[in-house]
């Protein structure tokens, strides 16, 4: 996915100039997606060292509030996106599933780092680690790295925003094409 750092996506629609101002013509879906993508509230969820990088991303130096992510919520009921920052073990898997189920739709998932993507360093010879969080919940954006740098997390967040702006939510697709399974 191409994320152009120079020009943020403008407000969707076009302005028709009229005397004394203008009229904005746009599509409701696009405006809703634009609003959604610019105010994503992440869930406070970190299971290992990736969480340190996530906290660094939230802090002053990287400051994810520049992209609308600043309102980290301690309850899944108020969160829009869950950043799986760390290893998911078999004992944590049902907890992660429950947190995801408790989030209100539309909801998004970022798998941060090697552990959340595939089990990473714990792929072989481990009895306790889930080999990728996508065995538990659907993932929208994956980040490579162990742990990824804050720039990589911000890139993933911008990619998620692009994804939200570019089309329908998972729930909308489900309603239109119920025969497809996700």
């Amino acid at each position: 996915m191409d994320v152009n750092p120079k020009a943020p996506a403008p407000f969707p629609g076009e302005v028709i100039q009229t005397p004394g101002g203008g009229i904005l013509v746009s599509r409701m879906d696009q405006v809703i997606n634009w609003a959604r993508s610019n105010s994503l509230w992440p869930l406070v969820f970190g299971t290992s060292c990736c969480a340190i990088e996530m906290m660094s991303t939230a802090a002053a130096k990287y400051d994810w509030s520049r992209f609308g992510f600043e309102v980290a919520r301690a309850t899944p009921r108020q969160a829009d996106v869950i950043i799986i920052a760390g290893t998911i073990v078999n004992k944590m898997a049902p907890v992660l599933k429950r947190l995801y189920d408790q989030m209100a739709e539309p909801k998004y998932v970022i798998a941060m780092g090697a552990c959340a993507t595939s089990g990473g360093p714990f792929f072989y010879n481990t009895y306790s680690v889930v080999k990728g969080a996508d065995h538990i919940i659907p993932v929208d954006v994956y980040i490579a790295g162990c742990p990824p740098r804050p720039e990589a997390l911000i890139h993933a967040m911008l990619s998620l925003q692009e994804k939200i702006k570019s089309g329908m939510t998972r729930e909308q697709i489900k309603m239109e094409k119920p025969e497809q399974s996700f």
Partner: protein
Amino acid sequence: MTREELQNSLPDLAPGATFEEGGEWLNMNVTAESWKAVSHALKFTAGFDFDYLFCLTCVDWKTHLTMVYHLTSTTHRHNMVVKIKLDRTKPEVETVCDTWRTAEFHEREVFELFGVVFLNHPDLRNLILPDVWDGFPLRKDYEDPINMIKL
């Protein structure tokens, strides 16, 4: 006390103990039968005062298990390591949680992961693993064909 002073005076507390060369700290080997009395003496004998058990773990050598206790004294600032060789088929050793309270949880962890039974432990059950669990995951011959991808 220095390492040499400890090694010279420890045989009074632990008769029959042997010492290993090398390592950062003094290594003492004792038998499982004598460990209860030795642990008590190490903590409460003046001059030794090993009042802090800062690491309790186990090693699987495939032929036998070894319990490893790292001790330090907060007053004298000296350290030592105690090792106990255990039979792999029936690993049993006395608990030390009445001497060092912290051992209670650490012994539960060693119990679930290595299968070492701590005699007279007040609450010996799984700490982190689910209550129903087969096998001892940190033993070298542990197999889990469902969750483990062997390399």
